[in-house]
């Protein structure tokens, strides 16, 4: 429990947050996160709301039978589960890169001796 970074009170500690914010690693971290999270969020929201819109406004089209009695509406609803799991998997994979940037930031701070970061 020797983290010296407490929610910024004095101006000296605030500059340490600013110093991290100015690091290339931090900028790259934010870029990588935005690069994944924004398109992924837009996609899953669009894909999800396609379901109530299609089912609600085009019920006849969605009732088309695809496999025996199973129709498009049921298959599309079922696909939502697998799409959600796939996005979660892709996020976890992408997040390994975020964690790496995070670790590099911690290492730089430790090397510069500005903070003690305990594990």
């Amino acid at each position, binding site marked *: 429990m020797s983290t010296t*970074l407490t929610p910024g009170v004095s101006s000296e500690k605030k500059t340490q947050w600013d110093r991290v914010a100015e690091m290339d690693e931090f900028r790259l971290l934010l870029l990588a996160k935005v690069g994944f999270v924004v398109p992924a969020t837009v996609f899953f929201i669009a894909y999800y709301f396609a379901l109530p819109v299609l089912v609600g406004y085009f019920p006849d089209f969605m009732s088309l039978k695809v496999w025996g009695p199973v129709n498009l509406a*049921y298959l599309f*609803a079922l696909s939502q589960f697998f799409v*959600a799991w796939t996005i*979660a998997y892709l996020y976890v994979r992408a997040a390994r890169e975020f964690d790496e940037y995070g670790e590099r930031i911690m290492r730089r701070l430790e090397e510069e001796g500005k903070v003690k970061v305990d594990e």
Partner: protein
Amino acid sequence: MNTTLFLFLAFIAITLGITAWAARHSGSSASYFAANRRITAWQNGVAVAGDYMSAASFLGIAGLIAFFGYDGFLYSVGWLVAYLTVLLIVAEPLRNAGKYTMADVLAYRLSPRPVRAMASLSTLTVSTFYMIAQMVGAGALVALLLKGSNISFHTAVIGVGILMIVYVVFGGMIATTWVQIVKAILLMSGTVLLSVLVMAHFHFSFGEFFGAVSQVHYTGPDGKEVVKDFLTPGLRFKPPYGALELISLGMALIFGTAGLPHILVRFYTVPDAKTARYSVVWAMVLIGSFYIMTTFLGFGAATIVGRDFITKNGGNNMSAPLLANALGGAVFFAFISAIAFATILAVVAGLTISASTSFAHDVWTNVIHNGTERAPGEERRVARIAAFVVGAVAIGVAILLGPKANVAFLVALAFAVAASANVPVIVLSIFWKRFNTAGAVCGLASGLVASIVLIFIGPSIMGNDAVHIIKHAPIFPLENPGILSIPIGFAGALFGTFLGGREPLAEAKFTELEVRANTGLGAEKATAH
């Protein structure tokens, strides 16, 4: 003593054992409120699933599918996809920047007292409304499941209420977590077993299964037998407002889940943001598998048991237990009933701890006493008293409403408030530098008020027949107000921000919050036993 009652008592004995064990490890605030932040990824994932999958989903959705086919299954989809919002946007920043409650993140760079007061009001609203809905359902259900053992609605409500108070007051977050884990494991095994039995009934042939689902027989309102294809959309959500209702419901689920206080506090129980992330994935695997299996439960009940029989034997909430009875006899009925009971207890315990933590940490310590405990352990003591009071109020209100009360709208209300009040301000405070105190207070207030007002002038409360509280045609046509209340919540937050003027301190601390939220630097650490 019948088998059902015996299994209920067995579950109570196990969970009280857990509580006694947890009570010996709940001696500090970090252990009482956050289980020492030592819960592992899989444990928290299972606990999130246990906290989330309420009786409304186990019994309610199975019943909706049994009665309305495909339209019931549409609910299932939203309950899982909602976790992408939790995973991608909320869980990690929350874990990194907060301590015990949702308000911690909001108060981080904004003026703490007004923001915490409003955030706590919203948390208490969501938790108590959701809890009252669960308690009324629990009372009616337990009385029904234990038919023949002379347990009345009142006894059942008081029993459930006392148990949840005991778990939370004595065992804190550690006991709550393990009750949720045990429940989730029971619920999953019961659902898998039931699904396998349904498929066995159809000789493990999906062709035969879906064939039966496409020709469900039941008695229509005019007394004649009808045959319906239960895979066709439109049995519940009909024109003119069916499509809008579906979209509005979807919005409340997708955005509301990430604002449910009892789910959010679970992410404070793990050591770091990375574990929080993996725990969401664990939760998604369980929750997704469960909701896919509601296909077998609901369609199974529709085809094997039949709508007519379910209507005569307790109504659509009894679909899953009656299916168990039809496929596995009295013992399996008892097992599924005990799972339903465990499900209710785990959810109400989660709601109680999040409500009492918010009162103790946000209102008592931070709003009333400016952020310091006057005596060591005060916050914990206040939380225990609050848990007791919240539980007592929930018992009282549930008894007052009685077993016949229509409480489904309270669940819709909880999700609407979470989506319209909590989520806009969480997102804006993490991502928008200019966001300020006035914006947060205004956003929380407008989301909260809009949700409540729209529910009360909607078809849940207003209608021209005996079941509605206000005898008047509904002014707002939808049961789920999300489609309007969520934009109002965001608009309120934006309006407040611009009206409030620049807040240099909040903007100055944005960098700090951004660094913390994204790197975990300075985040609350796990503590030793």
